[in-house]
């Protein structure tokens, strides 16, 4: 197997709030292989978006701060780069697609200006070349009559179109890695299907690796090779998508998967649930962060957070002292 494109090691991020320091990421480690699509799932506040922002050095500071760890991209630690060097990485080597297509594009500049700026900066194209290139990319993401739409302002486009523009912009410099942070959450389900299909297809065509960050297990299941599950700033389970969904080993993963309503032929009387609520990052339980909601916690779980290691039974990378045994569902 080739070298990972991106190696995140023991990444730690803190946020300073009025009430204290919240550890948004607490020692996250994972790899992204070239050409691979890695899903990162978790509920809101688990730290998945912080992870993506940390990689590009975009954590708003203050209040946020990276306090430890390494982010190795093609062997180089991004955390050691200067702002100027980092600017060259952003967009050219690693591109990002954001969640809100309504606000992620600058409302007062045309698509041509915004895409053109990126292309000229990273590809060294002339104004004219950049425009042509932008039109080509718009066409590739399925925007009808791109030579007209390119002079539109974002508000003149629908949500789906805007997200396509975002994708076109992300792909246009042919980055090695795309980080897509909830790229379809804000879209309607029929549009989501279109957009998702487009991202996957194009990234495969280009051989671009992708980190897909989402709370939607369905999206992960249908697009990712591998998936990481996060909970309260910790990575708790990681595996290839197939085994993960077939046999989740962490009680949280299992509970999450079970509680997703899905279209079934027979209507259930009640959905399986996970008891309780996600703890506040400022008041985390001692030991495993899931311990208070876990149905099968053992004493050990209360005293220490389990390390992430390969679980013998399931073969997943897992942080649990008492994993779910056997086939789920």
């Amino acid at each position, binding site marked *: 197997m080739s070298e990972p494109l991106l190696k995140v090691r023991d990444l730690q991020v803190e946020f300073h709030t009025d009430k204290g320091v919240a550890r948004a990421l607490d020692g996250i480690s994972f790899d992204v292989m070239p050409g691979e699509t890695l899903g990162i799932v978790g509920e809101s506040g688990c730290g998945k978006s912080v992870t993506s922002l940390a990689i*590009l050095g*975009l954590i*708003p500071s*203050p209040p946020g701060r990276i306090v430890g760890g390494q982010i190795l991209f093609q062997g180089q630690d991004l955390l050691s780069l200067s*702002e100027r060097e980092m*600017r*060259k*990485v*952003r*967009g*050219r080597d690693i*591109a*990002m697609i*954001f969640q*809100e297509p309504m*606000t*992620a*594009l*600058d*409302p*007062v*500049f*045309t698509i041509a200006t915004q895409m053109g*700026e*990126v292309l000229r*900066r*990273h590809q060294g194209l002339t104004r004219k070349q950049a425009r042509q290139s932008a039109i080509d990319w718009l066409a590739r993401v399925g925007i009808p009559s791109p030579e007209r739409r390119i002079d539109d*302002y974002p*508000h*003149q486009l629908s949500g789906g179109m805007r997200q396509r523009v*975002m994708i076109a*912009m992300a792909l246009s410099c042919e980055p090695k890695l795309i980080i897509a942070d909830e790229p379809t959450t804000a879209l309607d389900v029929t549009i989501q299907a279109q957009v998702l299909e487009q991202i996957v297809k194009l990234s495969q065509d280009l051989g671009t690796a992708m980190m897909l960050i989402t709370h939607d297990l369905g999206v992960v299941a249908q697009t990712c090779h591998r998936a990481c599950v996060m909970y309260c700033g910790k990575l708790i389970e990681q595996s290839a998508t197939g085994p993960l969904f077939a046999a989740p080993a962490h009680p949280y993963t299992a509970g999450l998967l079970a509680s997703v309503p899905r279209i079934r032929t027979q209507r259930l009387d009640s959905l399986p649930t996970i008891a309780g609520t996600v703890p506040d990052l400022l008041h985390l339980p001692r030991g495993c962060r899931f311990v208070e909601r876990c149905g099968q916690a053992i004493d050990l779980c209360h005293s220490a957070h389990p390390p992430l290691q390969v679980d013998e039974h399931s073969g997943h990378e897992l942080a649990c002292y008492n994993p779910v045994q056997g086939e789920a569902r």
Partner: protein
Amino acid sequence: MLQYTLKKLLAGLPLILGVTFISFVLMVYFGPDKTYELAGKNPTEEQIAQIRADLGYDQPFFKRYTNYVIELATLNFGHSDSTGERVTRLLGRTIPISLALTLPGFVLGNVIGILLALLAAYYRSTWIDKSIMTFAVVGMSVSFLIIIIGFQVMFSSAYGLNMFPVRGWSMDTLGEYLYYVTVPTLAIVFVSLGYNTRFYRAVIVEELGKDHIRTARAYGASARSILLKRVLKNSMIPIITRIMFSIPLVVISGSLLIESYFGIPGVGKVTYDAITTGDQPVLKAVVGATAVLFVVVLIVTDVLYRLFDPRVELK
């Protein structure tokens, strides 16, 4: 465009009527009575009645207001009751002076304010930000009056630098203009800078927190291009609003104090004199001009909005 302008002008009519009506009631109808100022040392009842009739005081309220509206529509306000000068000539003579007086300070106050705000917002929470904002609060806390008195003593008197004139005005040559306009400009800049910096900083900080700024950074845009291109253009709506809507006030209200203190024959001074002497033709014209200016500002502002923000449509 023409149709739009006409439509807007029409829509501005209620505003013009409102401003003129309220002003008329306050300044003209209940305003100062000039009769006894014009009456001389030893007037008779007949003379007083004659003056009142001449000034139109004896007419009923509605008639007087109607006359005002007609005067406004025909731009014929007659002659100043005080000096006898034709009101239109008076305004034509004084408004350029006020503009020339306040414009440099107004422009500098806003430009420097924006620049300081950009600095402060970009270096948010650092010492740069803190010192700029401390300066701003101090600036906001000093009364305009104290600044004017202080600057005059500092720059213009034999007790200070004695570099500039105590008072007066001339625009005959550029040198003279600069000679006379400097101290007032410094005062205007100083008094507006605190407010401007704070306002613009708030706008820019808000803008810096927007998603699309994050997008720009995620695609490698430099701080400079973000601040000077994206943030500035995106902040244009509040900036334009602030600047445009202060124009009518700056021209008339803002220059009043400076003009009276520095003895500059601008429209602010003329207006103030008109108020304090009950010179109704002048008052009526100034108020009418202000109202019209406001409507024009509304239209220009709309057009500028459109220029800077494609989401705005001219309706």
